[in-house]
């Protein structure tokens, strides 16, 4: 289980302190999918970065299975079960898809094995393994490869930051089935997509001016609809 206790995060903008996350208390249970949603600027991506130690909280503590991991770095978390797929995949000049899959899975994969990860995200694997992760790939391709790398890495805690953005050419069902296969892990997904919220066990609504609301997905979706604060919950556009 992951616990966030009194997490605050602020940045300095134009010489003034700007609070992004204020006194956040949340729990993410094992064997559950939690969707995090909320307005632009409510701190969703920041929360994911804090979980992966890409950013450090200004105050508060993060616990994983009872252990305080607040000050443990990204490599430590990666080597202890935390896996992330970024909203904006990082590009590399020279490193290929296969290089990243090998690093992620900590082994020199045979072509057949590396292909499996790509097939899971709907890519014809042999066409991609030797391609560099650079501008020669489209945004949608990079996004799907980002997911494949996360799957190749494996782990116990999966963090997905807007995984649906840019995957328009791939079936949504493919993405959903990836999350369903991870049901026995701790899965945290930042999303606005109704279909993703619907497969979640829990939903967290972040609100820049108030404490987050966490609850069972069915209840939370009704609440979102009734308050008509469902941003783009209609299932159409992404943020």
């Amino acid at each position, binding site marked *: 289980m992951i616990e966030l206790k009194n997490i605050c995060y602020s940045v300095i903008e134009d010489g003034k302190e700007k609070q992004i996350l204020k006194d956040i208390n949340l729990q993410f249970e094992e064997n559950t999918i939690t969707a995090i949603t909320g307005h632009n600027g409510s701190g969703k991506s920041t929360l994911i970065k804090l979980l992966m130690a890409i950013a450090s909280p200004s105050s508060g503590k993060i616990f994983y299975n009872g252990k305080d991991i607040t000050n443990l770095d*990204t*490599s430590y978390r*990666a080597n202890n079960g935390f896996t*992330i797929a970024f909203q904006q995949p990082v590009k*590399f*000049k*020279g*490193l290929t898809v296969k290089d990243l899959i090998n690093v*992620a899975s900590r082994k020199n994969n045979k072509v057949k094995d590396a292909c499996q990860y790509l097939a899971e995200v709907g890519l014809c694997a042999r066409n991609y393994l030797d391609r*560099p992760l650079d501008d020669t790939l489209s945004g949608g391709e990079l996004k799907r490869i980002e997911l494949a790398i996360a799957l190749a890495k494996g782990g116990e805690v999966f963090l997905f930051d807007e995984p649906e953005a840019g995957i328009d050419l791939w079936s949504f069902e493919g993405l959903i089935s990836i999350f369903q296969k991870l049901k026995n892990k701790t899965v945290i997904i930042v999303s606005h997509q109704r279909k993703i919220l619907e497969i979640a066990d829990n939903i967290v609504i972040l609100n820049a001016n108030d404490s987050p609301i966490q609850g069972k997905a069915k209840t939370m979706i009704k609440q979102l609809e009734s308050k008509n604060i469902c941003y783009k919950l209609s299932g159409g556009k992404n943020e």
Partner: protein
Amino acid sequence: MNKIDKDLLEQISNLHGVPQGSFNIRKNGQALKRKSTSEIEILPKPDKSGIDIIVKPNVKNRSVHIPVIITVGGFNDLVYNDFYIGENAEVSIIAGCGIHNSANETSQHDGIHSFHLEKGCKVKYIEKHLGLGKEGVGKILNPTTNIVMEESSEFEMETYQLGGVTYSNRITKAKIKDNAKLLVTEKILTTNTQTAITHFTANLVGKNASVNIVSRSVAKDNSKQKFISNVIGNNECFGHVECDGIILNNAVIESTPKIVAKDVNASLVHEAAIGKIAGEQITKLMTLGLNKDEAEELIIKGFLK
């Protein structure tokens, strides 16, 4: 050949023993081994140090290895190699020079290579440069490559300097005629106080002539690199120069990509970017379990691959 010779040859030309086909292995200024074939002839120059490599017209899918190794200190080697590539021939040429210097005096190799490409031929030319042995002792390599490309010929050049060379001045000049195509990929790594200088001059004289130069360099410690390119479009032609550099520590990379259009239909582009390793790349690899040093090493390895 002793172990040092074999190691050098393996690293500069991937040779594990005597190659197939035509070859010339030069060690400390002398021909160590040489073989000509009826398709690719290798002849020593009568008047000066070097060889003529003559590829007959229409020869297909053949390779020729001409590595140079220097294993002593205080040695200056100057060599002139001329390549005559016949019409419609298709050939790979694997050159390169390795210096293993364990003495106290500098060793130097200046290789002047001139390519004469006849119509319709295709050449892939690979040269790797390497310095091994005692730290801080001069291992200097100055390769010069002159290329004259007749109609519809193609020249693909890959040049690598991946460590240990204390100073290099790499000069490449090409004259590119109608429909001829030149592709150059350069990858250079410098460390300590090494200096690497590159000069490219591509003269696009023919209609639909094209050149694409891609330079990737990594400079670490207190090393210095200078990249100067000059692409001149004299006709309806295409030229592209891309220079990417990563600097670490106190290193310096200077890039001067010059393009000169002398014809309204010349299309010339240059791009240059120099900077440290992007922080987001290190972060990404750390999310896969690498530490910062491992991440940097992998990024550089990929960049220079």
